[in-house]
């Protein structure tokens, strides 16, 4: 059974078609990289999969664990193991990280018929996961993303992913804005969380990240379509040649 199966997905925003027929299948254990020029629709695809509601899905279907994904609310998708690491994580003043994480964790537990987590267990898990992504500062004592540096925000996404242990993680440019050490930490975190049952989609502009998170497939999204899919060597080729040769190929 595939984890995710996207079938001819078309998405319009404010009347403009952004995704023009996406096909993609992801199996447990796989890492897929999606690359592509600015504005090609990568984040749109990620948000559509996570359930952003101001998008108009005009055509196609998405199966997630053999269920109709498009029928589910964002929270339902999350509870079923989907995770979106935002390209631009949102600052939420007044909502503390701790309260936020505890609520998220407990919602998921409730969904799985588990009782709310005890305070001590929660602190323990939080400590563990903080170590995993090497967050040492007291970021968790603050409001969600409020005043976090660009890199801290990205680390915080991976931290949340570690806390929530998703089946399918979609990481939208989690590498941009990270210094080289942070990049290694983030990649390392992702690798440690890999199992044979879960899968990851990494959206990135840089081959660099893919040196650390080795993808099974690399796809190029261009003007709302996946125009090329191949193994990890494609990333290298893109790094060298840019996207122009592909554009020609498509035309």
């Amino acid at each position: 059974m595939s984890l995710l199966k996207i079938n001819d997905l078309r998405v319009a925003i404010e009347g403009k078609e952004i995704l023009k027929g996406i096909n993609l299948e992801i199996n447990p254990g796989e890492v897929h990289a999606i690359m592509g020029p600015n504005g090609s629709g990568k984040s749109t695809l990620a948000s559509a999969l996570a359930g952003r509601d101001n998008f108009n899905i005009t055509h196609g279907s998405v199966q997630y664990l053999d269920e109709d994904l498009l029928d589910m609310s964002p929270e339902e998708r999350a509870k079923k193991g989907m995770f979106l690491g935002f390209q631009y994580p949102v600052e939420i003043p007044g909502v503390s990280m701790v309260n936020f994480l505890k609520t998220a964790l407990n919602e998921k537990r409730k969904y799985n018929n588990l009782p709310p987590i005890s305070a001590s267990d929660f602190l323990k898990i939080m400590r563990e996961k903080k170590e995993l992504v090497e967050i040492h500062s007291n970021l968790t004592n603050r409001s969600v993303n409020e005043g976090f540096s660009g890199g801290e925000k990205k680390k915080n996404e991976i931290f949340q992913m570690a806390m929530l242990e998703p089946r399918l993680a979609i990481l939208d440019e989690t590498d941009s804005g990270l210094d080289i050490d942070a990049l290694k930490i983030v990649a390392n975190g992702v690798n440690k969380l890999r199992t044979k049952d879960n899968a990851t989609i990494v959206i990135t502009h840089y081959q660099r990240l893919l040196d650390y998170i080795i993808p099974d497939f690399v796809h190029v999204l261009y003007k709302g379509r996946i125009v090329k899919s191949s193994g990890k060597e494609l990333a290298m080729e893109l790094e060298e040649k840019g996207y122009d040769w592909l554009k020609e190929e498509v035309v």
Partner: protein
Amino acid sequence: METTNTLSELSHQLVDLFTENSELIEKESTDYMNSFRTKALEDFNKFGLPTKKQEAYRYTNLETYFKGEYFPVLSPENFSLNLTDIFKCDIPELDTYVVLVLNGFYYNKNIYHYLPEEVTITGLAQASKNQNGVFNKHYGKYADTSLDGLAALNTLFAQDGVYIHIPKGVELEKPIQIINICYSFKNLRITHRNLIVAEDNSKVNVVVCDHTLCDKSYLSNSVTEIYAGENSYIAYNKIQNENIKSTQLSNTFIHQEANSHVTSNTISLHGGLIRNNVYVTLNAPGCENNTYGLFFADDHQHIANYAEIRHMQPHCHSDQLFKGILDDEATGTFNGKIYVAKDAQKTEAYQRNNNILLSKTAKMNSKPQLEIYADDVKCSHGATMGQLDNDALFYLRTRGINEKEARHLLMYAFANEVISITNVPHLKERIIELVDKRLRGELSRCNNCTIGCT
């Protein structure tokens, strides 16, 4: 009483009501208190109930507040209320001196254990009779009857309420908790009159909880005068939690002397019609004043907040922060005035009003008023009307937090800025709990009350 009366007709009726009952009203009061009625009557005859022509009342139509039939409470009633029942309304864990006020009259069985003997907490009528000089020095000095018709009306009918006196140098650590209770078998018109005097270098925390214990309509018009002596510290927290049929007009007059620090925070959890007036006079240099408010309104509730900070002397700092969440057909207004006198140089005066409108039909009017005659002044004001942040909502939902809970988190976060200001520890927790309940729609009146009313 007709329900379609104009304000001037209503004002005449109120004057008649006073004239007809003046003997009863004046009987229990001292000559000194009664002497204020003469001026109040004059002022009220002249100005009547405030109309929309008055800047401060531009968005508030008092006709809607005063319509309806009420039975005026002109003398204390004898209730066989069981105190322990009422104490369940008390804030758990919060150790306070509890002052009960029933339908505007001080409950004469209030007992204060371990109250330092130099501190006085008593009924206003009693205080006026005690003739200790403090009462006469302060009563009626700050609630200017020519400034606000509601103050004139209150002074006209004022009989009782709470009197608190903290003498020089006394720091009262334990908060004083005034519980105003409306309890009756008919609709009541209630008048409260309170006086809080904190002399030089004193400190006091006052918490006021307003409750309606019955399902009747109440129209209350209260005046609280607060005097903050030199270098004194006063925290005044008011929590309004009344039934949907209640109308509350709350007028607070704060007078500050040099280097005093006063924070007032009015949390309007629930009510029918609410109008809160806070008038602050910074009468000497070095004062700090914080005037805060947090309000929630849904259904057809209406909440109006008016704050006026008068900087009369240099080097004072004032901060106004009012935040509100409105839903359904609720309406609200905020009107914040900053007045800076010519000599009040080096004034810092700030004002902010943020509102969240959850429905398309909820309405909020917000208006700053600045009157600044000094030239060396730091002043800012700002108002926002918004919805819940959709991006934040989506972010929370992608973490598995359901929409309802996510909205709740965001609303709570919005309110928390005001709640977190409260520095009475257990009170803060209680407010958090009440706000939480309010946001979940589980609150319509004091949750711990067990008094059954029919």
